[in-house]
């Protein structure tokens, strides 16, 4: 956490826009994190969890048939092979362990697709802390299996019936819980969003992805990649893989969900492209790029990929996009779906619909990308089979 001139700020983005009740908890979290990341016991325990529980390091896989298809050398960073099926556990296990070291009795989290909820349930069970997850009723219906998975691991899932009943409302509800139980509870936020220190904390925990990828590509190709492509909802898998390359001459593409088009109705966006089309505002504790109406009311968002379906984005990504260091782009639902099928057929890897957005950019940007490319496969697609099947009918 050494990113800013002002505490918790990335340029003018970030900050801590939360009720006063939570401020002491945010300070406590920051202090706890700074302390334990220097603590050899904590680090050793985290490393063991990452290797023996999460299954790290994940491979960097040379996707030969995909490479041939696009006339480039394409590597896949296999976060789909992390325990639970997505990169989400990298963050969840780190924060759950931190919560335990800080003496918290209870962990709460929000989830959209259920991936972060599952990662939280797994992490909490393995470190031995009670967990409760907030999930919109709409998402619970779409992801019944994931609800059951969480429950199997001893996690209590709270249905959220307010607002649009999706991720944004689940975060609202988790924050309300935290306000009421802040003294005993750690809020395990699932992406690089929210008030400081979350964007830095989650980035640091996810940057294991980029550190591994960097060492792996240097070993295999003896050079750095020309481009890295990652899907971007809140932005944790993208900043996770980008971060160790920020100072290098590597193009970094943050691919957002273009949904069914970059248009808005009065109360909803048909997409989730906050980085590419959003405007500045404050959502869930941070100043960042958000989807909002003419008065600053938050719009509902849309994506075929539930994990990208969010009206905001991490403040550091907003900053990096503004400075030109990362390149925001977006692909639509149907392009992602095509990429989902393509990778399954060509490589025998079924990607998450979220990750399929990153893959779809290979086609969209054809000709523009230079030779050596890493695509972050943030998760596997098992969770999406039902919705893809339904779409096909």
């Amino acid at each position, binding site marked *: 956490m050494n990113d800013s001139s002002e*505490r918790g700020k990335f340029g003018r983005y970030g*900050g*801590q*826009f*939360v*009720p*006063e*009740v*939570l*401020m*002491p*908890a945010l300070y406590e979290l920051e202090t706890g994190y700074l302390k334990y990341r220097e603590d050899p016991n904590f680090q050793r325990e985290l490393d063991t969890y990452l290797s023996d529980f999460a299954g790290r390091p994940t491979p960097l896989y040379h996707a030969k048939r995909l490479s041939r298809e696009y006339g480039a050398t394409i590597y896949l960073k296999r976060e789909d092979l992390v325990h639970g099926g997505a990169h989400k556990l990298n963050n969840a296990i780190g924060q759950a362990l931190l919560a335990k070291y800080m003496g918290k009795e209870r962990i709460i989290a929000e989830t959209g697709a259920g991936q972060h909820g599952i990662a939280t349930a797994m992490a909490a069970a393995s470190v031995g802390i009670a967990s409760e997850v907030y999930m919109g009723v709409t998402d619970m219906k779409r992801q019944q299996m994931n609800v059951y998975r969480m429950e199997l691991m001893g996690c209590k899932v709270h249905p959220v019936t*307010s*607002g649009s009943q999706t991720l*944004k*409302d689940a975060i*609202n509800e988790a*924050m*309300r819980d935290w*306000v*009421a*139980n*802040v*003294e005993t509870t750690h809020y395990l936020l699932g992406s690089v969003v929210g008030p400081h220190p979350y964007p830095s904390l989650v980035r640091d925990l996810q940057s294991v992805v980029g550190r591994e990828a960097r060492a792996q590509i240097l070993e295999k190709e003896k050079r750095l990649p020309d481009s890295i492509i990652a899907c971007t909802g809140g932005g944790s898998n993208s900043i996770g893989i980008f971060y160790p390359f920020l100072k290098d001459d590597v193009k970094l593409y943050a691919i957002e969900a273009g949904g069914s088009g970059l248009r808005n109705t009065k109360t909803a966006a048909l997409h989730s492209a906050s980085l590419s089309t959003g405007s*500045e*505002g*404050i*959502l*869930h*504790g941070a*100043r960042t790029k*958000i989807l*909002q109406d003419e*008065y*600053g*009311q*938050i719009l509902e968002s849309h994506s075929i990929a539930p994990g990208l379906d969010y009206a905001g984005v991490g403040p550091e990504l907003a900053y990096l996009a503004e400075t030109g260091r990362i390149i925001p782009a977006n692909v639509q639902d149907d392009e992602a779906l095509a990429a989902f099928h393509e990778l399954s057929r060509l490589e025998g890897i079924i990607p998450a619909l979220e990750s399929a957005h990153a893959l779809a950019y290979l086609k969209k940007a054809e000709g523009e990308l230079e030779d050596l490319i890493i695509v972050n496969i943030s998760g596997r697609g098992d969770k999406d089979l039902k919705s893809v099947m339904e779409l096909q009918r």
Partner: protein
Amino acid sequence: MKDVSEAFTDKKALITYICAGDPKIDATEAIVEALIRGGTDLIELGLPFSDPIADGPTIQAATQRALKEGMNPDLFFKLAKKLPGDVPYAVMTYYNLIFHRGIERFVRDCKESGISGIIVPDLPPEEAGELHETSMRYGVHSIHFIAPTTRRERIERITRDASGFIYLVARLGVTGAREDLKEETRSLIERVKTPIPKAVGFGISTPAQVREVIRSGADGAIVGSAIVEIIAKNKDNIRRTCEEVERFTRRLKEGITG
């Protein structure tokens, strides 16, 4: 235009909250008049935001109703201008609506429509600099919060910058009616030592609770969800709402004076 500080001049204050535009845009004026007849000393007008993280189910529902009716900041200020000048007004809203309108413009709109206090539950002092400074320039109070979790050095810093009154959060949690008043509320009132009036809110819903916080040394009691519940119950009958709101406000006021 009355200044929010006048609510506390030589007396303890009853502060009531309603969400502007709930249940109908044109009901707000009548409900405000009912609150005034009932004896409120200050009215906190909610400007509804789509994602009210500091509010419980009652005020969330009011927010949804008002947004559905089409309440927005333009209408809000237009409406505020028409309200009777018998009592001072403060606006309660979330920071994105202020930020989006532009801080200077928002504060100027408050000033011009007779609103002399701005209450923003998701704006801690760390981020409040610009709003606070702009408000002072316009002679509007930006109201600070102190919570049960706020420790001593922080309390000192917040009270030093405070203006108008200080909003003491009665307990951990969001807004909403609660039965009991905890020891933590009493201890918070005692811990905050300042010449600026202290008003206690979040979970205060009965005349007995109003009496209790005032006896514990608070200068004001803030009641929101209990009033919003009356409005929710009689959505289709504004006259009935107003009668009940007036009666209930009068009872709350007895908690202040008696």
